[in-house]
């Protein structure tokens, strides 16, 4: 069956994602681009729900659609005089950048389509329905993987990430503070 509900939802979200990403890159007004960026973040959360990664979807909404969007809008507001200056928003070598991106995208798609891994899993597909039966993305499992001191877990990288966040916050305050 080529057109089950999951496929329709996926293609809808993928269309919104690619269109909003293009809008972020191509729009002249940077405030409109920032609002399109919020749409990209929301649609990406939809993709995670589709992949049964509910925890990632909630984190995406909280951090990206909430915090990062507000941060970007605030910085646009604080640099407003420069952002609205006339002239092309693209640099002179945009055609070279476009060529690089087209070649990269074609290469990645070719590699994904022809790799042994993709061939072996394409028949089984992502199993959007079957994966939920495995309880894959549940916060309990992710929490055990992140924090558990007894089983195999990522507790050390998690602690390093917390130190990284602390350093980033202190650094941002020091850099942006008025003299």
């Amino acid at each position, binding site marked *: 069956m080529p057109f089950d509900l999951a496929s329709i939802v996926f293609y809808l979200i993928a269309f919104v994602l690619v269109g909003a990403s293009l809008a972020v890159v191509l729009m002249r007004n940077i405030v409109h681009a920032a609002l399109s960026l919020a749409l990209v973040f929301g649609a990406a959360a939809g993709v995670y729900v589709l992949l049964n990664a509910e925890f990632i979807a909630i984190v995406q909404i909280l951090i990206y659609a909430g915090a990062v969007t507000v941060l970007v809008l605030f910085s646009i507001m604080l640099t407003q005089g420069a952002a609205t200056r006339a002239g092309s*928003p693209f640099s002179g070598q945009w055609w070279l950048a476009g060529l690089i991106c087209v070649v990269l995208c074609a290469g990645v798609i070719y590699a994904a389509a022809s790799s042994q891994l993709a061939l072996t899993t394409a028949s089984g597909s992502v199993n959007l329905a079957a994966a939920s039966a495995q309880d894959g993305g549940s916060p309990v499992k992710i929490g055990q993987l992140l924090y558990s001191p007894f089983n195999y877990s990522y507790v050390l990288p998690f602690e390093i990430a917390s130190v990284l966040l602390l350093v980033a916050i202190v650094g941002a305050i020091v850099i942006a503070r008025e003299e």
Partner: protein
Amino acid sequence: MVNLNSFLILGALMFAIGLFGALSKRNAVAILMSIEIMLNAVNITMVAFASAFIGKSDAVGIPVGSRLTGQIFAVFIITVAAAEAAVALAIIIGIYRRISTVDVGEINLMKW
């Protein structure tokens, strides 16, 4: 029919769009927004691989998807992206205070 390749192609498209923006825009805030798109594309690829291998075993019989490694990596990528956005925007605001521009073509204090 949605399979792993659909998500990989979606990730590749978004990554290429974000890379084009990061390479060709002049406004530093717009470059940062393009980088966020690239990070999101990588996240989608990571979570798609994690979902594709839930409950599957490799050649030796070890369950490859039982560790949800892709989703854990997505959490770390989101963490690092938040830290990166905070520091980068602070730098952009600091530069704007000093030389009143966010055009990366005009920011050449360290250009030799």
